[in-house]
């Protein structure tokens, strides 16, 4: 019988002990797996979110898009950027806060995203809006808007309905006249914040909703390049040194240096604590188990089992406990990750489509590596006990005891 088979029989002989050991490893392993998913989850998810829109360079005034600083003469800037040979399309985006009147109750607070819909060339093709139409069609006229599912369900609106909106382009305290807008579609906004509502339309619609108070500024210019995004961003920086042009990877890199680091750090701390916890407990389990079977091990040695063989038996037992527990930890970890993700997405200012826990093959590989290391390290001390076990003295003690 090989070492694994022998270790399996040892475990089966003590089913309660083995089952509890495996369950413990599964619980700790699930936590460890989740921490590994968390360490890069936000970065991977944000990169995916940015790439999904098809815009590979973001032009803004601040260090990061959405910093509050606005690009002056945005349409002219976008037109200038569009003339660059590496630029396929440039879309101007401006946000405003808005209130949508309801038949009864408080007005609904929402944000209004206004975008340019056509490229600078009058005959140019229509630019793709940074949202996905779910029902109806995209807004094209200055009196048309698209709304998100939340507004549609809360206010019972569908394509063809009309809304009364009071938008504010400069400050929350502006008191503006109401504007009637036609809902032409229901859309999904990739960066929509949890518990917030979003509407979208053309830049002209936003200007109309703001009572002509929008000025010529914009929050962001989204650029699609024909070739390499890095060189396009560099070309934009050369053309307009006053603006910040960043590729999606650069945006993620900047986020990584600021808000995202907390989760990375906390994940590192918890990974270390979890692995140490697992090593300590499996070591204690195996050591106590080996100590209880010293007589049995000495008898096996006397019957001809080599030192290496009994060491392999202990290592195999550790590998079986950690291996089976580790396998169970994967579905458990994914289940736990979805629950933890739901908790963390309750944080204000987090886009609905962003996830804190994202599965990556790299995370799985690290998880397996850490579990293998845990199995080996945890078995070191009990392996030393069995390898240095004096056969005759142990057998005599067993008989006398």
């Amino acid at each position: 019988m090989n070492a694994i088979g022998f270790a399996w029989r040892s475990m089966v002989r003590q089913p309660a002990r083995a089952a509890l050991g495996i369950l413990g490893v599964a619980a700790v392993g699930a936590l460890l797996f989740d921490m590994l998913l968390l360490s890069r989850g936000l970065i991977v998810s944000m990169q995916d979110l940015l790439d999904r829109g098809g815009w590979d360079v973001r032009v803004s005034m601040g260090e990061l898009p959405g910093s509050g600083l606005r690009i002056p003469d945005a349409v002219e800037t976008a037109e200038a950027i569009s003339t660059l040979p590496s630029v396929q399309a440039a879309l101007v985006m401006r946000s405003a806060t808005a209130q949508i009147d309801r038949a009864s109750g408080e007005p609904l607070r929402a944000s209004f995203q206004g975008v340019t819909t056509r490229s600078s060339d009058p005959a140019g093709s229509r630019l793709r809006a940074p949202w996905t139409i779910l029902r109806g069609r995209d807004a094209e006229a200055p009196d048309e808007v698209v709304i998100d599912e939340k507004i549609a369900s809360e206010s019972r609106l569908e394509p063809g309905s009309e809304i009364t909106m009071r938008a504010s382009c400069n400050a929350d305290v502006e008191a503006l006249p109401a504007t009637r807008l036609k809902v032409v579609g229901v859309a999904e906004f990739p960066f929509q914040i949890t518990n917030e509502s979003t509407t979208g339309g053309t830049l002209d619609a936003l200007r109309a909703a703001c009572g002509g108070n929008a000025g010529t500024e914009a929050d962001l210019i989204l650029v699609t390049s024909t070739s390499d995004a890095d060189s396009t961003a560099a070309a934009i920086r050369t053309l307009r040194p006053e603006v910040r042009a960043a590729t999606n990877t650069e945006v993620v890199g900047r986020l990584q240096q600021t808000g995202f680091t907390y989760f990375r750090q906390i994940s590192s701390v918890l990974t270390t604590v979890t692995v140490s916890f697992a090593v300590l407990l499996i070591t204690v389990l195996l050591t106590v188990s080996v100590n209880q079977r010293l007589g049995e091990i000495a008898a096996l040695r006397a019957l001809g089992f080599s030192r290496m063989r009994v060491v392999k038996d202990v290592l195999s037992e550790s590998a079986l406990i950690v291996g089976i527990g580790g396998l169970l930890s994967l579905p458990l970890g994914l289940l736990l990750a979805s629950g933890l993700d739901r908790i963390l997405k309750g944080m204000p200012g987090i886009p609905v489509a962003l996830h804190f826990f994202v599965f990556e093959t790299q995370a799985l590989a690290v998880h397996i590596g850490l579990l293998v290391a845990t199995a080996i390290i945890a078995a070191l001390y009990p392996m030393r006990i069995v390898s240095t076990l004096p056969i005759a003295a142990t057998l005599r003690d067993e008989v006398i005891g």
Partner: protein
Amino acid sequence: MRPRPLVRALAVLGIWLVPILASAQDTKPADVLVSRQLAESEGLTVGNVIRLSTDGAGTHAREFRIAGIYEPTPDPSRLGQVPRAVRLHLPDLLEMTRPADVPAGAEYVSSVNVALTDPRDADQFARDVNARLPGVLALPSGEAAGSAGPFRVLERFHLAIAVVTIIAATVFLLALTIMLVDERRETVGVLRLIGLPVRRILTQILIEGLLVASVGAVFGLILAVLSEQLINYFFQWRYDTALVFVRITRDVALTCVTIAVPLGASATVVASWALLRRGGLRLARR
């Protein structure tokens, strides 16, 4: 309403800063405060004269004298952002940021902080302001502190992690106690054979479990207090902030002890119970 004399410059990103020699000035520049982080990164000291402008080109730059360097109030919502900030007197800030077509006194301010004679009137005062001044939103300080939101979520997240850790620890604890109890099978068998009732042995095991769990809980608390400082030092260094990340309060310590001690004692009793159901002879038999 009494506006604060100093207003935090909301974004210093657009404000460019160039230190120049104080001696070059004919008129005394207005005073500003500079955050410690900005002072350290730019090598600024009290008495330096700096030029501030609202754009990168430095147009209409104005000179200010650094009257002091301040430690920014730790802001949880800005964790990870080094606060490179300058505090100006409100009239100076408005003078710099006012658009050409806006007359003096017609500028916007983002918020006005109000100190009430009786803080208990905050809710009523906010309601009155909201009713009398349409377009203005007044909130009591407690509700205005929206930045606490992320930390409530983090609290729930850490609680969930703690629950999973406790479950894992309980499972391991059960496995260990089963093994330890099994090791004492013969002793328990002898005690049964000399006439000690199951209840008496269980009480003894319970007391022993309580003692071991209490010592373990105290050791855990000592470890937590030591790691508290370590974690705080690390994160305060990492984020250059005075925020406290881990704090072992009396309530936290009591909660830990309340969970750990009964859990440890119960695990011992549960593991022993299966053993004690067997007969004394069977237990004592080798």
